[in-house]
């Protein structure tokens, strides 16, 4: 580790590694630090991604793909099944990843581009003066100071970089899903379908998911809106698992908090950009965050290169990054925030009615947009206020 770099990226998840990879590729002297001793563990994720979007961002590698998915089934509180699939197009639509391997792969790609990667290194303070930021780091008990004009905070839901830089990312209890997941072995599942269970009893303000990771293995998890839950997420999940997979074995426990806040006002400050969970880039409807974090990482890396070239690291220049993520990620998560706010208020009865209205159709576009378009057409009154927002946003 040197004492000065062009860019220091805090956090080696998908967002941080893509930021470091991009910055290094553009010729910047880049340091990527990770506080954990192992990149990729413990996992905090349901591991589902869209196939098309992922392959636009990175070359696919079967070593980190646990399962191919052809469709999804959504269950209303009364058990009504909605099926979404693109089988007719003849290809799988999504993957369930093996994040432990995926995350390491991305960090390795960053290293291959020339970024210096260091693990078991925690940032515990940030100071900025004369256009340069200095991070205080602790590595295996020793304290170091490292400086760079650009700091990229990819430090997750528990981000400190954002707090130190005065960027408002605080999450209220109605802006975070409290999540628990079990990797379950030897259970009866449909290995090519993701399953989602909705309802105020099953998962208030969220859903239960089953994401296959093999013929008889799946991530079985739950997210509940912290402001709506009456018990812990774990208690809700245990109830579902006891009912659905009483014979299954739990071979891993995954826990996490997923921001569902929608777009924040700004993700930059002088010398600092935030990406991924740290910038609350997760999708308020699906809870998905991997692809958004990767995209944000790429944008941040690109803007870092522009700032270095201009020798201007002020929030004014870094606002280019805000423009980039808001025009893409921001649009979708803004739209999905409106849908989320509408849906968390529905009673189980209303959710059932919505499901009945489209149950006989197969939704061919496997996306929030595909589902919502069908729902709005069939339920114009109930979803009146989403009509304009949603259809216009197309």
């Amino acid at each position, binding site marked *: 580790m040197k004492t000065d770099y062009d860019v220091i990226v805090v956090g080696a998840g998908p967002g941080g590694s893509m930021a470091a990879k991009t910055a290094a590729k553009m010729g910047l002297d880049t340091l990527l630090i990770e506080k954990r001793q192992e990149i990729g563990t413990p996992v905090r994720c349901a591991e589902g991604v869209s196939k098309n979007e992922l392959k636009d961002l990175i070359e696919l590698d079967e070593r980190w793909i646990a399962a191919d998915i052809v469709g999804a089934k959504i269950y209303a509180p009364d058990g009504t099944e909605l099926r979404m699939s693109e089988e007719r197009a003849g290809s799988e639509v999504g993957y369930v990843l093996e994040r432990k391997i995926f995350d390491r792969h991305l960090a390795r790609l960053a290293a291959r581009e020339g970024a210096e990667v260091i693990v078991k290194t925690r940032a515990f303070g940030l100071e900025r003066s004369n256009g340069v930021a200095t991070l205080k780091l602790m590595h295996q008990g020793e304290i170091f100071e490292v400086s760079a004009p650009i700091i990229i905070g990819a430090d997750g*839901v*528990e981000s400190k970089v954002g707090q130190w830089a005065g960027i408002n990312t605080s999450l209220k209890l109605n802006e*975070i899903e*409290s*999540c628990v997941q079990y990797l379950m072995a030897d259970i009866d599942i449909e290995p090519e379908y993701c399953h989602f269970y909705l309802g105020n009893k099953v998962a208030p303000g969220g859903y239960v998911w089953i994401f296959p990771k093999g013929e008889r293995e799946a991530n079985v998890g739950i997210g509940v809106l*912290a402001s709506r839950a009456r018990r812990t997420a774990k208690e809700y999940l245990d109830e579902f698992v006891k009912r659905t997979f009483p014979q299954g074995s739990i071979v891993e426990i995954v826990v*996490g*908090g997923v921001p569902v806040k929608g777009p924040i006002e700004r993700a930059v400050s002088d010398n600092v950009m935030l990406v991924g969970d740290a910038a609350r880039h997760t999708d308020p409807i699906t809870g998905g965050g991997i692809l958004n974090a990767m995209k944000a990482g790429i944008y941040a890396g690109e803007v870092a290169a522009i700032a270095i070239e201009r020798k201007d690291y002020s929030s004014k220049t870094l606002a280019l990054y805000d423009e980039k993520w808001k025009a893409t990620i921001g649009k979708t998560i803004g739209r999905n925030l409106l849908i989320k706010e509408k849906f968390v208020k529905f009673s189980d009865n209303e959710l059932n009615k919505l499901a009945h209205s489209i149950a006989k159709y197969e939704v061919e576009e496997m996306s929030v947009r595909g589902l919502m378009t069908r729902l709005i057409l069939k339920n114009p009154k109930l979803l009146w206020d989403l009509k304009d927002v949603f259809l216009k946003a197309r």
Partner: protein
Amino acid sequence: MISVNRFKCAYCGACIGVCRFDANELIETWVEINDNCTMCMACVKVCPVGALEVVDEN
């Protein structure tokens, strides 16, 4: 005060995400709570596994 049951905690960081007072931090595999804590209870409510609890200071 708020106390972390380390046997339950899975160090996911959700409690840090909801803290408005910069009163907690996830240090590698454990959560530390500092004197900024106002006992607002947000962290207790968000914890997915119920690892945070209020304990009597004595």
